[in-house]
């Protein structure tokens, strides 16, 4: 039986709605939801919801917060300050890769935390300094263009790899680590939120140790020496 006129109108309305919805989901801009997080990443990153301060332990122990469940290897591609593509899996090859999320107009936390990391690296013997890579990923990528981010990072004594891109790309990076997608776009009216900890990835690809905001340079330096010398086994 042919549907009534009313039924046909309802059906076409429904079809139209579905088309709009599907188109919305496929939109490349901020309307599209970020990649779903790997359950392992989510489970591991959930540990970061409770902040644990570092403590001064034995000389052969790492003083930063050792995770019961290490964070799995991130998988993302972002734009470095020289315009090249940084593919984490391909390009993060140092003995220790420190990952920090922040933004250049941050007045309080980012300068303080980055300076602590920089001071720590300065305390390492020159040969060891080359074994640490610091990645600064912007959660305000619309403002933090590669050039802008590069200029900001020049102000820190230590070499830092600045990473930026589209808001979606940065949120994909956060989600790949299991963290909340807090990167903002140009319409944001509030400063972006970001993880409080620096994540420390070792050559095995995982992050076994993290350091919250407030960790002093001496703790970072102590831990970095151990991690460079012994890899993730320094955390056991």
């Amino acid at each position, binding site marked *: 039986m042919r549907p009534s006129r009313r039924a046909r109108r309802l059906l076409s309305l429904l079809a139209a709605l579905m088309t709009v919805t599907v188109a919305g989901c496929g939109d490349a801009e901020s309307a599209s939801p970020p990649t779903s997080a790997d359950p392992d990443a989510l489970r591991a990153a959930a540990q970061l919801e409770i902040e644990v301060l570092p403590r001064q332990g034995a000389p052969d122990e790492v*003083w930063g917060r*050792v995770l019961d469940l290490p964070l799995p290897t991130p998988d993302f591609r972002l734009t470095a300050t020289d315009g090249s593509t940084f593919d984490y899996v391909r390009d993060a090859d140092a003995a220790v890769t420190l990952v920090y999320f922040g933004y250049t107009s941050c007045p309080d936390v980012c300068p303080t*935390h*980055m300076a602590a990391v920089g001071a720590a690296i300065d305390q390492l013997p020159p040969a060891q300094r080359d074994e640490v890579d610091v990645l600064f990923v912007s959660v305000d990528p619309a403002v933090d263009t590669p050039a802008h981010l590069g200029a900001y990072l020049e102000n820190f004594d230590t070499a830092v790899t600045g990473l930026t891109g589209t808001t979606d790309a940065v949120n994909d990076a956060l989600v790949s680590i299991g963290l909340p997608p807090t990167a903002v776009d140009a319409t944001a009216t509030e400063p972006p939120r970001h993880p409080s900890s620096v994540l420390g990835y070792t050559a095995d690809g995982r992050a076994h140790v993290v350091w919250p905001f407030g960790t002093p340079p001496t703790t970072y330096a102590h831990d970095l020496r151990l991690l460079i010398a012994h890899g993730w086994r320094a955390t056991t």
Partner: protein
Amino acid sequence: MNLPRTTAATLLTAAMLLGGCSGAASSEITVSDARVPVPPGPNGAAYMTLANDGDADDRLIAATTDVAGSAELHETATDGGTMSMQPVEGIAVPAGGQAVLEPGGLHIMLLDVAGDLREGDTVELTLTFDVAGEQTVTAEVVPTGDMPPMDMGSEGVTMGSESMETASEPMEMRSEG
């Protein structure tokens, strides 16, 4: 009216005492350790300790400085491992108490800071308090990232007066193994 001298003297003394009582509730703000780290970007922060030796509660409600386009009162907070920053309407400095503005917490955010601040410079800030009114403070320009030492115990986690706050999250002790 022709009052006897002693009565007049008594009345005058009483008036002075009463007048003194009505003006006695005041705040007395002392600022110490005022510092501005060299900002690496367009925005920076001023940190300091505000002590109120008076008997009236007070509140810092505004700040201005010539070295920045504008200054606002902000608070950084950590919740569930995520840091955020909010403007605050005022920073309470209770009578007989103090307010500490430090990295990771309350601070005066300086927007659009002059690009030529160097360690060793000084910066003048004009602070406005609800009760005490305006007060000028000289802050020292210190290296980026300059902050008070975190109190790190040897046994576990300790929270000294200068250590970083982690809001109301429970602290986990790492098990010895």
